[in-house]
């Protein structure tokens, strides 16, 4: 029994399901390699060369090299994994979250202090008029 993929109606959300699992495996396994200090050093030394060891698509390579955090999610990145690139850069979760949601770090921090992003108006794509599309 498979649950209906009704989570696809949630805006701005990239659920790491079977489809993304197939798409993003190599990308996320590259991120996993950054758990090792020596690998972090090698990656920082020559990012493009380091990525050669992993079977990334051109678009996946681009998103990593450009630190396109939102783009990474769209090509199969899993946030539990892609955040390791940010740690490697010395960034925090809030830094990355602000970039993914398209606001400044200060605006994002202010929103969190004020109680976070409300669920009101953010439950369904058709409420926001935006949100992600698969593909």
């Amino acid at each position, binding site marked *: 029994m498979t*649950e209906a993929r*009704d*989570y696809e*109606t*949630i*805006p*701005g*959300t*990239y*659920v*790491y*399901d*079977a489809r993304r*699992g197939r798409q993003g*495996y190599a990308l*996320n*396994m590259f*991120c*996993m390699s*950054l*758990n*090792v*200090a020596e690998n*972090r050093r090698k990656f920082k030394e020559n990012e493009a060369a380091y990525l050669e060891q992993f079977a990334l698509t051109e678009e996946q390579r681009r998103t990593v090299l450009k630190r396109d955090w*939102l783009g990474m*999610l769209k090509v199969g990145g*899993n*946030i*539990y*994994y892609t*955040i*390791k690139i940010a*740690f*490697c850069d010395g960034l*925090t*979760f*809030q830094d990355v*979250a*602000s970039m*993914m*949601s*398209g606001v400044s770090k200060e605006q*994002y921090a202010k*929103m*969190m*202090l004020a*109680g*976070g*992003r*409300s*669920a009101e108006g*953010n*439950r*369904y794509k058709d409420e926001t008029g*935006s*949100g*992600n599309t698969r593909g």
Partner: protein
Amino acid sequence: MDRGVTATPYWESLFKGYEPARQWLAKLAPDVAIIVYNDHASAFSLQIIPTFLIGVADRFPIADEGFGPRPVPVVQGHPALAWHLAESLILDEFDMTIANEMPVDHGLTVPLSITCGQPQQWPFPVIPLCVNVVQYPPPTGARCFKLGQAIARAVASFEQDLRVVIYGTGGMSHQLQGERAGLINREFDTAFLDGMTQDPLALTRITHTEYMREAGSEGVEMVMWHIMRGALNADAAEIYRHYHVPASNTAAGLMILENRRIS
């Protein structure tokens, strides 16, 4: 806490609320803790994804999560009870993965730090019970609750009479990804905490989509609470609650539940 920032104004009110829980736990002095948590791409990658896993080792080193291991003590295990749990649960039809060696990450050590402070050594041995929430789908809330019930049966049938605490961790509402990052839902979290005593079975019927829609994509981590809740008696009482927004990107909730009659 690992960075020594708990006394700064931003963190102070969050950490002050943990004090009563520390006192409660210190007074209880458990013989062992079962900590239900999720690994964050530390011990396990996408290579192998165990849905439910139990750690049976003597000790669990601290993982390097991408910035060096956190400066917290190594976690001592409780192999005798852990192996008993593994055997009992599998024979009770819960198909556990067994880990003889694994590092543990902040998913396990932060709840320990919150409830024990920063000792040189953790005050009790720990059995890690790791749940997949990183690859969709995590186990359902109802399945988690039943696993909790099986854990209670297994603990009761252990040859030694031990004082056991079980931690349910994860959540509460938060979303770390996408344009919707930063979602917090105080109403949902409050109803969830209320439901832990008022109608825990009703909570087990919350679907993954409902968690993700209402409590953020990573809010689905809350399924792990049901393992803890299932391990307690139906009439378990709320002893203490602390809820705070924000802890960086998340809503933080802590609740102590106690069986009315220690069986």
